[in-house]
């Protein structure tokens, strides 16, 4: 460097730019975000500060998408980037390529806050969980188009239960904006409707990588899904908010595939069992019928119908006999009744009274019972037991 060289402002700023940009082409700086502003252009501006100093920072739109999560004021972060100098103003800033929360504390706190809030709303209640279909034939999967996750799941499906149609909704599964894409995927599958179950999946990664599945929009969309949702995010030890609201949490994407479809061999076994049971049931049924018919055929009566006829005629004879006896009894009874009536009638015969010395007076054929019914010159007949005497009242 030449001592006491004279510069113009532009020259100096250009020189400083060269020195700074070459000297700080890649820096990592720790600080707290403040004054964060989303410009309409999509770029994000903020100040990175610590207790005594601050640094301007710019986050270009193209990089926002790749962030694990959207930066917020007050967040303690580790920023990676390079120093750039704005010659016109003689200012410098950090051009941010990535932002990570400082330690898991920040994210953990956000996770716990959301978990508590949604839990209080009842979104994790077991009663809300929808049962999974026993034999899904169409499965919607919301995950990344690239990467091993989809392939791993496809292999499980092919091995276990290939009679499937998988409907993929390709989404980004990490970075700012991923949460909205995942939520939209679940909404689209619900709007489309023609799937039996939805799997929301992502492979393993850091807490930041999995962060989209801890966003409220994802949780609420899963909770609102009409179609049952299985969450399959990260490894067994990773729990996300999506896991708590899902109808079923699978420890990994491959495990989700295993849980959602049955093993074809087991189902074929069931089908064979059913066919066997049906055959056996029917065979035993037919056997019973055959036995019954056999016993009928072997029975004495079936083999010698004449016996049956004999037994019938014997019965008829008995009936006839008893009927005859009954008729005789009835006749005897009637006869004795008749005799009684005859005796009573005989007792009433007037001739027997006349024989005892009485006479009977009749006028025009009618018996006269009182003296008052006779008048002078009435022609009457007086009957004695041995004959009638015509007479006139005087």
């Amino acid at each position: 460097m030449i001592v006491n060289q004279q510069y113009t402002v532009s020259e100096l700023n250009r020189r400083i730019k060269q020195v700074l940009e070459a000297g700080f082409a890649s820096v990592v700086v720790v600080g707290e975000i403040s004054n964060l502003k989303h410009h309409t252009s999509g770029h994000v501006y903020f100040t990175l500060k610590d207790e005594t100093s601050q640094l301007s920072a710019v986050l270009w739109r193209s990089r926002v998408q790749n962030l694990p999560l959207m930066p917020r004021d007050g967040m303690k972060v580790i920023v990676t980037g390079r120093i750039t100098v704005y010659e016109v103003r003689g200012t410098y800033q950090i051009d941010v390529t990535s932002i990570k929360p400082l330690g898991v504390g920040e994210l953990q706190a956000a996770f716990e806050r959301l978990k508590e809030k949604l839990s209080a709303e009842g979104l994790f209640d077991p009663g809300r969980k929808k049962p999974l279909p026993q034999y899904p034939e169409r499965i919607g999967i919301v995950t990344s188009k690239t990467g091993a996750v989809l392939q791993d799941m496809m292999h499980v499906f092919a091995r276990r239960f290939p009679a499937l149609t998988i409907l993929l909704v390709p989404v980004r599964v990490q970075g700012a904006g991923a949460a909205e894409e995942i939520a939209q995927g679940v909404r689209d599958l619900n709007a489309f409707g023609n799937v039996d179950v939805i799997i929301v999946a992502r492979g393993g990664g850091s807490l930041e990588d999995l962060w989209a599945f801890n966003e409220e929009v994802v949780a609420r969309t899963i909770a609102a899904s009409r179609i049952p949702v299985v969450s399959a995010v990260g490894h067994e030890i990773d729990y996300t908010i999506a896991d708590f609201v899902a109808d079923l949490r699978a420890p990994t994407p491959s495990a989700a595939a295993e849980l959602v479809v049955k093993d074809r061999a087991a189902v074929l076994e069931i089908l064979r069992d059913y066919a066997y049971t049906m055959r056996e049931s029917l065979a035993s049924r037919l056997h019973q019928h055959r036995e019954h018919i056999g016993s009928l055929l072997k029975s004495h009566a079936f083999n010698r119908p004449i016996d049956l006829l004999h037994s019938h005629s014997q019965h008829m004879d008995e009936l006839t006999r008893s009927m005859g006896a009954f008729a005789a009894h009835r006749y005897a009874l009637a006869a004795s009744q008749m005799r009684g009536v005859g005796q009573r009638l005989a007792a009433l015969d007037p001739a027997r009274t006349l024989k005892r010395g009485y006479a009977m007076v009749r006028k025009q054929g009618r018996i006269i019972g009182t003296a008052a019914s006779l008048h002078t010159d009435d022609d009457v007949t007086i009957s004695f037991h041995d004959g009638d005497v015509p007479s006139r009242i005087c």
Partner: protein
Amino acid sequence: MPTKKRDQDIPTFEQSLKRLEDIVNRLERGDVPLEESLRLYEEGLELSKTCSERLAKAEVTLKRLSKNAKGAFEELDDEAE
């Protein structure tokens, strides 16, 4: 309709299997008349055959859900696979 719905006339695998289960149970109980048993047995055999055939399908189909310009959903074959 913007979406192609599943053919309503064809029972799902689950429905077929449920029906088959029902038939097996009824035959096992043996409380249906013999004529009816024979008819159920025939239906059951047919169901178990079609279910097995469906399981024999060799490949998983992968499709991609896509929204066209009019906002209607389409199932596209996934060329990338």
